[in-house]
């Protein structure tokens, strides 16, 4: 499974990819993403100039820093770096959050729970391996772009081993017998590695939390995703949906826990997304 489905909160990556497929596949639907499109050009500016947004950034004085340290606030990073993502599109994002939340509880979770009951976890794990194996190009190319040559080599090696010894990818022999771990790289991370900021938080319908940068990344990765090339498109989408559901069947409680523990679920999801992506880019 690509990074896309591994994302802890991007749980219901279901139908939206069709929109993306539509955009890349046929030119005449190109207009369907106008909300993010406008923000595209202002990427980095926003990161720097949005200081007046409701989520104030830390501008702490030395004295405040001292007291924060006592409260374990400064574990290993300077809090002068923005600790949250800009959210100028919060009107759209909140509406989409509500939509995704309903879709999750009314459709995605019940369906996946049913699926998980019918299909044994071991079988689902094997299917998961298969999809992880064929999404190798995404991780390979993005490792290369980030100059992580060792990861790139590992990905190739893993693909070679698992496609043969691992019975066309159903068994992760490379990990179990050779200790070769897959590296979770995608184009959004690659852009982040080259100092491109998120631009703005952007909640995608069905797919969950993202940003302008990572949405562009998602589109980029689509070109490296073999299933995206399957024709007809409905079949391609169907397989992707199934892959997502299969992957999601292992994380059925994640969103419930996050939401259950949150005082403000919208902010909790946004922050978890931001932290998770930051950790991946910093890796």
């Amino acid at each position, binding site marked *: 499974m690509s990074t896309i489905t591994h994302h802890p909160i991007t749980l219901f990556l279901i139908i939206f990819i069709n929109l993306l497929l539509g955009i890349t596949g046929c030119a005449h639907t190109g207009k369907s993403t106008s909300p993010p499109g406008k923000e595209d050009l202002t990427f980095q500016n926003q990161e720097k100039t949005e200081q007046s947004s409701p989520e104030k950034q830390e501008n702490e004085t030395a004295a405040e820093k001292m007291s924060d340290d006592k409260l374990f606030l400064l574990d290993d990073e300077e809090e002068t770096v923005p600790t949250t993502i800009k959210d100028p599109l919060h009107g759209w994002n909140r509406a989409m959050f509500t939509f995704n939340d309903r879709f999750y509880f009314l459709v995605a979770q019940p369906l996946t729970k049913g699926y998980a009951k019918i299909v044994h976890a071991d079988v689902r794990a094997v299917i998961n391996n298969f999809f992880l194996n064929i999404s190798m190009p995404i991780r390979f190319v993005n490792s290369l772009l980030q100059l992580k040559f060792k990861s790139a080599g590992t990905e190739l090696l893993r693909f070679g081993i698992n496609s043969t010894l691992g019975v066309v990818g159903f068994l992760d022999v490379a990990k179990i017998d050779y200790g070769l771990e897959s590296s979770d790289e995608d184009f959004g991370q690659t852009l982040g590695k080259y100092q491109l900021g998120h631009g703005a938080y952007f909640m995608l319908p069905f797919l969950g939390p993202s940003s302008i940068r990572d949405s562009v990344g998602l589109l980029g990765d689509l070109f490296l995703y073999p299933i995206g090339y399957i024709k007809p498109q409905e079949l391609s989408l169907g397989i992707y949906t199934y892959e997502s559901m299969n992957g999601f069947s292992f994380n059925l409680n994640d969103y419930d826990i996050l939401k259950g523990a949150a005082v*403000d679920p919208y902010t909790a999801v946004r922050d978890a997304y931001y932290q998770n992506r930051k950790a991946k880019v910093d890796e």
Partner: protein
Amino acid sequence: MKIRSFVMVILCIMLIPAKTYAGDPTDTVTTHVDRVMNVLKGNASEESKKADIRKIAGIMFDFTAMSKATLGKNWTKLDTDQQQEFIRLLRAMLENAYISKILDYSDEKAVYIKERALSDTRVEVQSKLVTKSADIPMDYRMVKTEEQWKVYDVIIEGVSLIKNYRTQFREILSTQTPEELLQVMRKKVGKI
């Protein structure tokens, strides 16, 4: 005789650290997590499992440190009573959200990777949870209090629990009073 007293001295030296040393952070986490796993694997009723896990959580986590860290500078905006209530509510919120859900997990295995010192009294224990579909990085940040290591933050897949709460509390307290925040938390926990 000489040899005997020499042996005694060596024995004493060996015993001293064992007595006063609180055990290193990784051991502490391992012990607690193993106990939780054992509870999960046991045949006890759901309610008694929950109670057992609550007990372990009480020893494993430093809820006061967690509360302070989630509020940061805002901690001082709360008076003493509010601070005490905040600690209780945060703990209850965490327990409610996590304990019933982790009852579903039982075949996961925890692997400890390494320990990283954050300061003289704080350490990060890095581990991963091996599941059927993926390995989930899970780091425990611990603080030494009264000769005991206690967890004050858990970082799952790069997401720090403390930071996640801090962002939420900061936004709420930028427009609302501490009392209003407590009210939201009381509702969440289920008592008015």
